[in-house]
């Protein structure tokens, strides 16, 4: 691995689990990056990717639980994990604070994911060596 100089990645995920392959490919990439000694500065969920932060997704019992795989990886590696607040609210993803603000009786954003603005992504664009996008395929 010494041939590759360590860099820092931000991974942007714009496809939902069990709808697109994006969260799966991103996780395989993330694990390989960490193994190779690279840093992951941030995981940023945008567009339909915010559904990866849902605490209410009930994966079929015979399929991999991508929510749990991602949550565990993020927690183990202590990677800041952000879902875009604008994408999230319009797609029915709210955390405790937004639930109060919008007077909803439930919330469904799974920590360690946090709802924050696109400024987090801009920060990655200026500070990470590479920003990669894991998107839906041609599904729709």
């Amino acid at each position, binding site marked *: *691995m*010494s*041939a*590759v*100089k*360590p*860099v820092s*990645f931000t991974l942007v995920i714009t496809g939902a689990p069990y709808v697109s*392959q*994006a969260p799966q*490919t991103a996780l*395989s*990439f993330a*694990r*390989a*990056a960490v*193994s*190779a000694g*690279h840093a992951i500065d941030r995981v940023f969920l945008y567009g339909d990717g915010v559904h990866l932060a849902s605490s209410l997704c009930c994966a079929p019992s015979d399929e991999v639980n991508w929510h749990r795989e991602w949550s565990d990886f993020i927690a183990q590696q202590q990677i800041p994990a952000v879902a875009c607040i604008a994408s999230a609210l319009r797609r029915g993803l709210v955390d405790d604070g937004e639930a109060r603000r919008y007077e909803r009786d439930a919330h469904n954003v799974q920590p360690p994911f946090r709802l924050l603005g696109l400024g987090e992504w801009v920060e990655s664009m200026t500070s990470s*060596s*590479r920003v*990669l*996008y*894991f*998107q839906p*395929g*041609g599904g729709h």
Partner: protein
Amino acid sequence: MSESSVADGAGMASRHAVLHILNKPPGHARTHLCLATLAATDALVLIEDAVLALASGLDTSAAVYALGPDLAARGLAADNGQTGVIVIDYEELVALAAGADKTVSW
């Protein structure tokens, strides 16, 4: 794959100005846009549904890589109609991305 081939991947990447990562299936408008911006000195990595381009054909003089697990999932091999394609794993994809000047995710 061996560690030396990972190093090779990184070595190859350093020659490429832009690493284009495509995940759309053949026929998708994004595929045409990707190919229209692909320089002969760039590299193209086919991932997810884009690996189906190995079956339908791909017209480029740029270096072409394809993600092995996505090929296997779809019952394809590197020699499925397309010549000169280099099969890589996630480790090599990371090395290519880390070594490239710039990446574009199509």
